């Protein structure tokens, strides 16, 4: 059998997979079969964490934001940190699914589905925090432009108003992209399953038949959507960065912020992808589809963005010194050597230095090492935002200086956000194909006699 031949001949970094269409479909659909008990524990854990968050939020509504560790002049603290953190997480997805698609990077196919899902859920998480963090949460909708008899409108000069639009746009588009990409796969699942599930997936597959016409329109539209998403990857986090850059706080109002934030976002995003995929791969038995080859590439992406971040950090310090602006200089000095030095270093070490380990292939292809590093990356990127918020603590008037001082209310909300995110992600991973069946299939040469080398070459060339 041809398949057998291919299997034998699969080189270490050859085509993304060595399976046949049939096997792929089978394996992927297999991920949707009844889950082991462990999975349910996981879901319950997530829901539990989420409820912690809910409880905290109710407490905030009753008692006021004072429960959290705000220490004026630090008026934004852990909630904004979480917000930026989660928006950042969201970025890898769109990058991998859209931009890499346009660049025709073969290795994305196996990972983009899960990353896209991650994006959507991360944005869903992030979007909660601006509401949680405002003083009077019950009137958050005043930030939306809607006609009213008071002739009152939001202030479009305010970066916070831009945020509303940036986030909502990003959420809508990435959700559409995810659902759209799912259609053929859901159809594939539909054809495998039986009973009520067949009915459900049937509805979700929007009557997909896989006819030639459908495929033609589908791929065109997919291409278009990808093109449409691409600028968002850059724009959204740039806008988020302007929340800070548009102010006059030393350490905030830097022109470097937009690129710096975007790089950071992708960095943290890929970090989170690794954190999630490595266990998932094992758990869903996708070793043959998600090979070292994929992780190697993800790691390279991490290395790239990490290095950009390294540069950005360096540049911030250089500019602070070069500007001869005492306010900037004080802020950046206190960032690493002030009272909150610990936060400063837990941002610099993982983000700037740890990522440099990925120059070594040995580490890139060692999943355990990669996973550990990815955890550090997540922590590091969370602290980056923490440190940025903490810059408020030492701005113009020394008399007012203070340090952020988080409380249970902050941690409760952080735990809650992870619960909320995890809940959605893991539910998704068991209800929909986490690897794109149809796209992987594209790389599998038709099982035909002869031209094996050619087939291999063709596959490799992709």
């Amino acid at each position, binding site marked *: 059998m041809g398949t057998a031949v291919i299997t034998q001949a699969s080189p270490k970094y050859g085509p993304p997979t060595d399976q046949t269409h049939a096997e792929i479909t089978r394996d992927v659909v297999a991920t949707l079969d009844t889950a082991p008990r462990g999975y349910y524990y996981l879901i319950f854990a997530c829901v539990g964490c989420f409820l912690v968050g809910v409880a905290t939020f109710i407490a905030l509504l009753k008692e006021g934001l004072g429960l959290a560790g705000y220490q004026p002049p630090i008026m934004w603290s852990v909630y904004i940190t979480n917000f930026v953190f989660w928006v950042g997480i969201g970025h890898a997805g769109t990058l991998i699914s859209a931009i890499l698609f346009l660049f025709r990077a073969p290795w994305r196919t196996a990972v983009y589905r899960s990353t896209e899902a991650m994006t959507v859920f991360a944005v869903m998480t992030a979007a909660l925090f601006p509401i949680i963090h405002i*003083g009077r*949460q019950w009137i958050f909708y005043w930030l939306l432009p809607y006609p009213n008899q008071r002739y009152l409108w939001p202030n479009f000069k305010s970066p916070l108003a831009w945020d509303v639009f940036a986030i909502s746009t990003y959420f809508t588009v990435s959700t559409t992209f995810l659902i759209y990409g799912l259609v053929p796969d859901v159809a594939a699942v539909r054809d495998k399953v039986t009973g009520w599930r067949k009915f459900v997936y049937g509805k979700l597959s929007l009557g997909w038949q896989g006819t030639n016409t459908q495929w033609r329109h589908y791929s065109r539209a997919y291409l278009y959507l990808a093109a449409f998403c691409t600028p968002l990857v850059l724009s959204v986090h740039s806008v988020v960065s302007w929340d800070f850059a548009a102010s006059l706080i030393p350490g905030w109002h830097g022109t470097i912020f937009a690129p710096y934030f975007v790089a950071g976002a992708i960095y943290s995003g890929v970090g989170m992808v690794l954190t999630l995929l490595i266990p998932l791969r094992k758990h869903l038995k996708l070793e043959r589809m998600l090979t070292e080859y994929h992780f190697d590439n993800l790691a390279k992406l991490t290395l790239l963005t990490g290095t950009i971040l390294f540069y950005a950090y360096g540049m911030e310090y250089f500019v602070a010194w070069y500007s001869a602006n005492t306010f900037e200089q004080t802020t950046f000095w206190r960032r690493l050597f002030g009272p909150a030095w610990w936060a400063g270093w837990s941002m610099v070490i993982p983000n700037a230095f740890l990522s440099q380990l990925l120059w070594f292939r040995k580490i890139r292809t060692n999943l355990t090492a990669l996973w550990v590093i990815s955890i550090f990356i997540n922590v590091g990127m969370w602290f980056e935002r923490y440190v940025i918020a903490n810059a408020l603590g030492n701005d*113009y*008037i020394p008399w007012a200086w203070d340090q952020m001082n988080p409380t249970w209310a902050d941690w409760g909300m952080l735990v809650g956000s992870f619960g909320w995110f995890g809940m959605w992600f893991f539910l998704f991973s068991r209800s929909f194909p986490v690897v794109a069946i149809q796209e992987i299939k594209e790389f599998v040469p038709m099982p035909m006699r002869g031209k094996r080398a050619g087939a291999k070459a063709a596959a490799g060339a992709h």
Partner: protein
Amino acid sequence: MAENTTMTTGTGLDRRKFLTVLGATGAGAALTGCSTDRVAKLIPYGTQTEDQVPGIPTWYASTCTECSAGCGLHVKTREGRAIKLEGNPDHPVNAGKLCHRGQAGLQGLYNPARIKGPMKKSGAGFAEITWDEGIKLLADQVKAAGGAFAVVSGGPRGTFEQLLRAFAQQAGGSVTKYEPFDHEPVRLAHQAVFGRDEVPVVDFAKANYILSFGADFLETWGSPLEQQRGFAASHGFDDAAKGMAKHVYVGPRLSLTAANADEWLSTTPGAEAAVALAVARHVAEAKGADAGIRSALATYTAEWAAKESGLTAKQVDEVAEGFAKAKAPVAVAGGIGAQYANAVELCSAVAVLNAVAGAIGTTVRFGQDAVQGDGAAAILALGAKMASGGVKVALVHEANPVYALPKSTGFAAAFAKVPFKVYTGQFMDETAAACDLLLPNHHALERWDDVEPRAGVQGLLQPVMEPVFKTRHTGDVLLAAGKAAGYALPDAADFHAHLEKTWKARLGGGDPEGAWREALAKGGRYAAAPASPALRANPAAIKYTAPAKAAEGEYVLLATPSSLLHDGRGTNKPWLLENPDPVTKMTWRPAIEVHPDTAKLFDARNGEIIRVETAAGAIEAPVVLYPGIAPGVLSMPLGWGHTAYGEFAKDRGANATDVLAVAKDAKFVAYAGQSVKVIKTRGYQKLARTEGTPRQLGRHIAEAMPAAHAAKGLSVKESYLELGGHTHDINPEWEDKAIEGWYETQKEMRVYGEGNNYAGEHPAWGMAVDLSKCTGCSSCVTACYAENNLPWVGEEQVLRGREMSWMRIERYWEGGEGGKALEARFVPVMCQHCENAPCEPVCPVYAAYHTTDGLNGQVYNRCVGTRYCSNNCPYKVRYFNWRAYNRWAWPEPMQLQLNPEVTVRGRGVMEKCTFCIQRIRQAQHDARLEDRKLKDGDVVTACAQACPADAIVFGDMNDPESRVRKIKATNARRYHILEEINVKPAVTYLAKVVNVDPAHLAEGGHA
């Protein structure tokens, strides 16, 4: 006022309900998104009175009783409740100003810890009784006492005091006047030197060289507010022609007064007298005093003084020369914080110094006798009598000796021995708790009374509102009890009648009724001060005994009075507890001030609790490292550690007097100079301080220049360069131009845009703060709390840096290291109402925006609480309601004090200084009704109104006639904080002026 009374009794309706009805403008309303806190009922007056128009405040003249200075008050009432206290401009003592203690009187009036009605001891607690029972009981007991009757009165001199004496005399007893800070050493010294047992009145306004030996005349010594006014007048810099006085402070602790000195000479505690004598000697020689004095002073050379005091002979000589040369010198001594065992000698030395310098009769005026109490000796004697069972019935009126007298005097124990004790004060304080019968007096704002703080000044008190509780005027009580006991007392229906009769007799004239009405309106009767007699100093009074050195391994303790709490009567008022101490910036709790070097000796850091021990007792309190105190000296504020006196005061900190070893026959309490052991405990107490970083880091926030430069009319920058500093890094011209253009377009859109059409041209409100006058006393802060319904947030929130005071006094240190003298700079910082306000563009809902009259508006009900405005505020003057402060800051009945013109902010809302916009709008309404334009002075913000030094000027910058415009345009010392960020603040500061040789400030002494 009488009408007011009938009016309210007329309706006899519940005032609180009544007010929520008419105060439809927000008193006590928790602010929510679109809430209309519906009031179910509208309740009209029963009888309408012309002096009460809903929506229009009624003002009454009265007199302040928060300390013995007797300042005049104007009380603002709305719909029959007092909501704000301001100074009475006609009054000679305070001329329209009022200190934080005076203003906080309101929180005494509405204090939950007031005794709510007559009560009798029953078991551990008290049982309510009727007034008739109470009065009967009093009469019976006093009669039964058969002469073994004693009265302790903290009340001021006046008609009531005479009634009290008459009552006591009828009952065969006597009255002891008790005032904790009674300046006995001053009186004893003047007795010895001039043969006059009295406290003179010092005129700081006339002086041009002020030499203070530990007399904190800006805080608690003498008549602080009057002296602040005087000090600002002479020491504040107006123009080269007037120049400014020089102020030198001698003493081991940098008090607020010392912080306002041009030079602070830190001596070994108790050795101030040595310096005084040396200066006196030099002056006596220079001015050729009579031989007796000269010979008596002969031995006290500068070298000797230097050895005694730890200064250098040069320093002493410099001071002596300056003092001798000065046209109008004045030396003062006898501050509570410097009341050492040898305080009498110090005061005598200073009296002699004043005499030889010719200050007596010019800057130091006798004959007005500002004495209030009978001195510690008298009260201690009474204590002894009580201990020996010589007193069967004791009546304590408006005094708290059980708390205020140190434990070592044993007064509390002696008082407890008295079989029957009656209390006629207002608060459930330590003394009240120890009494058997409580007959609570009306608060000063609820009663008829008069006050004579000094010869020639007689202030009237009139009730400005119905009593809050079921209290009764002690005068009425005495009259009733007297009748019951058959005493011969003035025959009058009640004290009001008696007072009116007395005054009409006193005023005389053809139309006593008219005169009485006029006196009421003016707040009293103010005769010119009697001429000061010529006095000759008695050389025999010149003595000096060196202070007892602290024993090996021990430290010297100064128990210093707090300018906020006074002798501890302020500790039940949250406004005073949360208002940070002017120099240490501590709130809500006392801390022991220790010099960093001293702290090293017992390895204590900020907040670590130490135990201070003496034979008399021990106290524990956290350490606060304070550079403004001499090494080896500890300082602890008085007024804390109450064991009663209401929820705010009770068990808060420790009472410094507990460690003072005072002899039972002491002539005065030596608050300073106690030698104490120090043991570091394991305890820690985070300090609720409002200070972040006390150094300016070269940011030019609090500017200063030497007097010489100010006289030359140099600008801050020029002076700074002359002193060898680097240039300010202000933006280049092109940058300013660019911003100017941007700003103009913004203004176009804002002011002349559609819908922004006020009638006539727009005002542009602005403020100027003169740092050469500002003493950092913090009266403005309390004024702001009262006017703008600011909530106090409590210690635990202050620890989180969440205090809400719209106006804060920043205190920056200069020098204090590398041999440079320590200098304190005070800057009041409130919203700067920037023209290019960074807070405005970032608010997503336009809650922060620029009004057409140049204010930086903050619309509470539009605010959703993103707090971006505060992040983006370079001055950090925006304050956020982190919790529902409005739910706890006004416990019953304090909410009655709320200003109905100002919205009470709910949680989740940003707030900040509004330039008292309610006052601006009110003035605009009035002007509109009179069809005229606003004129300068129509609007005075609460802080400007209160400022004793007149350092704050407010007005319209578009009005060419306004004071503020002139200052902004012409004054050479003008500058803006953080000028380089181009936000165009509407608040202009005038650099502080230090009267020292420029060399002192050299090499960038600015920051």
